């Protein structure tokens, strides 16, 4: 076994290229807020511009083929970009974008023409994408969704309502799942679309959350050309699966959960100031540390599996489940060890480690996007052959 990417000379040179490029291009827009919610419109604009440059370079989706707007790089090169970007993540404003979820179904089920038309704007960072899945009646039970897209000549006419879309600023592009055949059986009645969000009939209102805000979006007789349907009519569920396999953890990730660093910095500072952890506290902090490493290892395993196209079974959901549960455990440990200081946010001068611990208190509650803890377990049970429903990992890229 080898847990390290052994970088060739070529990759080392490439890393330097990436670093130099980032030095030159990361926007100088002052210290970013801890809470993405507080990013100013100017910062958001700068972030999108940076993203555009990254996309132009082909480094936003480096493994996507050149003809579809990527760089066609091997994953060994892509990982260098991932590592360098994550190294500097706190300097680069986060731009909510689910293009990474829309590209795989297009690559698998899209026509050549669609791949050349629909992928490049995403891959080049010219647009951001919403994931239009959830509805009021369709949360965990996604297949119960009701938004309809009814074929009329060369178009579909869409009516319905989606929840939890995007971030504080609207996206330009939408990956949307609708019912195209109300009479077909469950899972066979759906189709997936990619469409612009500025079409007539689309309106939105913000959803105010205690984390990053989202939008509720209404579709009132929205007309979408047939060419924007991914794959055949009725293939929507397969598209969803290709997406969810990745969102549920199949894409893997690299590195330790970031709150760990902030918490350790806090503890080292506190120690200097004379705060000594008792044995119980110490054990809990180290438990948190070990479990963060387990999360890193599950993430690395999944990353490697995806890169080498070895689709496992339960591993994606295991990573997701572990991360969510450990997030909750971590927040309790932080709350116990730090006390009420853990709730002071970045706006207040008394905030410790810039308010990262407070941000984590809120984020950790957020176990629901990309399927709840219970649903991850439902999926795992199917894939370890316990459930009445049995399945392997979905087809994805």
């Amino acid at each position, binding site marked *: 076994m080898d*847990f390290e990417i052994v970088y060739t000379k070529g990759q080392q040179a490439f890393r330097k290229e990436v670093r130099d490029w980032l030095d030159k291009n990361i926007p100088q827009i002052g210290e970013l807020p801890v809470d993405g919610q507080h990013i100013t419109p100017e910062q958001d604009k700068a972030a999108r511009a940076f993203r555009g440059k990254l996309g132009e370079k082909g480094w936003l989706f480096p493994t996507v083929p050149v003809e579809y707007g990527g760089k066609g790089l091997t994953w060994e090169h892509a990982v260098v970009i991932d590592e360098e970007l994550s190294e500097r993540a706190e300097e680069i404003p986060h731009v909510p974008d689910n293009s990474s979820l829309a590209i795989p179904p297009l690559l698998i089920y899209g026509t050549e023409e669609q791949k050349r038309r629909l992928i490049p704007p995403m891959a080049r960072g010219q647009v951001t994408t919403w994931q239009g899945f959830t509805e009021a009646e369709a949360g965990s039970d996604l297949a119960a969704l009701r938004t309809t897209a009814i074929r009329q000549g060369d178009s579909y006419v869409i009516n319905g309502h989606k929840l939890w879309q995007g971030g504080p600023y609207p996206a330009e592009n939408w990956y949307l799942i609708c019912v195209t055949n109300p009479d077909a059986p469950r899972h066979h009645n759906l189709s997936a679309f990619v469409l612009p969000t500025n079409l007539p009939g689309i309106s939105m209102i913000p959803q105010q959350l205690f984390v990053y805000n989202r939008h509720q979006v209404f579709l009132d007789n929205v007309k979408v050309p047939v060419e924007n349907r991914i794959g055949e009519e009725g293939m929507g569920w397969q598209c969803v699966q290709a997406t969810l396999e990745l969102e549920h953890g199949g894409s893997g990730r690299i590195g330790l959960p970031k709150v760990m660093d902030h918490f350790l910095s806090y503890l080292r500072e506190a120690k200097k100031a004379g705060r000594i952890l008792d044995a119980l506290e110490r054990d809990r902090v180290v438990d948190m540390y070990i479990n963060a*490493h387990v999360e890193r*290892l*599950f993430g690395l395993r999944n990353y490697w599996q995806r890169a080498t196209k070895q689709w496992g079974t339960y591993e994606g959901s295991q990573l997701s489940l572990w991360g969510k549960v450990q997030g909750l455990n971590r927040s309790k440990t932080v709350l116990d060890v730090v006390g009420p200081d853990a709730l002071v946010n970045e706006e207040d001068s008394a905030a410790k480690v810039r308010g990262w611990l407070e941000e984590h208190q809120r984020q950790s509650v957020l176990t629901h996007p990309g399927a709840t803890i219970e649903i991850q*377990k439902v999926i795992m049970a199917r894939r370890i052959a316990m459930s*009445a429903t049995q399945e392997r990992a979905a087809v994805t890229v």
Partner: protein
Amino acid sequence: MNLSLTESQQLLKNSAREFLERELPREEVRRIDDSPNGFSPDLWRKLVSLGYTATVVPEAYGGQRTDFTDAAVLMEELGRALAPGPFFSSAVFSALIIETAGNENQKRTLLPEIAQGRRIVVPAVTEADYGWDPEHIKQVTATRRGTNWVLNGAKFFVPDAQLADQLIVAARTGARGITLFLVGGNQTGVNIRNISGWFGDKLNEVTLSKVSVEASHVLGTVHRGWPLLESAMEKATLLLCSYMVGGTGKVYDMTVDYSQRRIQFGRPIGTFQRVQDHAIEGLNYLDAARWLTYEALWKLDTNKPAKEVTEAVSMAKTAASEGYRGAAGHAHEVHAGVGVDKETGLYLYTKMARTLYHYLGSPQQHKKRIAELLGI
């Protein structure tokens, strides 16, 4: 990066599993467990003839060591089959101590004998006031008498001592010094008493009264025994983790298998979400321990900086101890009454998980070490 076993590791894994399923079925484990000295000469001969007892010993001393990950692949299978104690005590732990601490002459005499299974050597480290750090080595003392040493005191919770041709005794030789001694298992003044309890291996009290040891039987430098022992222990700990991961894997497999076969309310119990939760917890324990162990082995095999290896070992042992015990607990929930019946054999894992929980350092001790390394 490559997270799969090599082809030869996969071959070793398969052949070890096949061999152990044939030669060490559940009934045989029970029989050995119930026997007074916990040993099967027949199984031992076979483990020797396959070269398994030579896995950790370097080639220069009659062994077949390649790297620790290879050895770990075998240990995982041995743990899955619950291969009894002297394998680890002698062919792993003692072999590593002697390799680390012994002089050339000791290595040449002892290691080939261990590799060929002709001699069983067992470390005797812990005492009634239990702990795997130098502060807990105080009851057994050694004092000089002429050119010899005289050992007194008692070691407690010593696995496999009942089988030992020789013991490696860690004794206090002064306020700041610990020295390692080779002591004959049948030597005058050595008394071995089996401790009665719910143990997976035979654990013993080893009493030493005026045991006289020649200077040539000191392992390593006088007063400097602890760092040598610790260095060997680090490697041994990882192989113990693999043994524990193997057992955890078996316990998890039993859980899923039983949940598919047991019908209640007209359906397999595995289709109930509450039952699934237990299996998933078991699987998470298993994978956490397995990946931490593999990564630590890789760090050891590729000579990563000492601190990094130490941290990785302590994380792995914590996860292996907590994982094995935890997964066995979830297995019992799913097996319910059947799991308590000795016939099922689940209890063999349950008690092994507890027996190894503190062995080579409890989770608490390892966490303390990690905290020190983190500077918190």
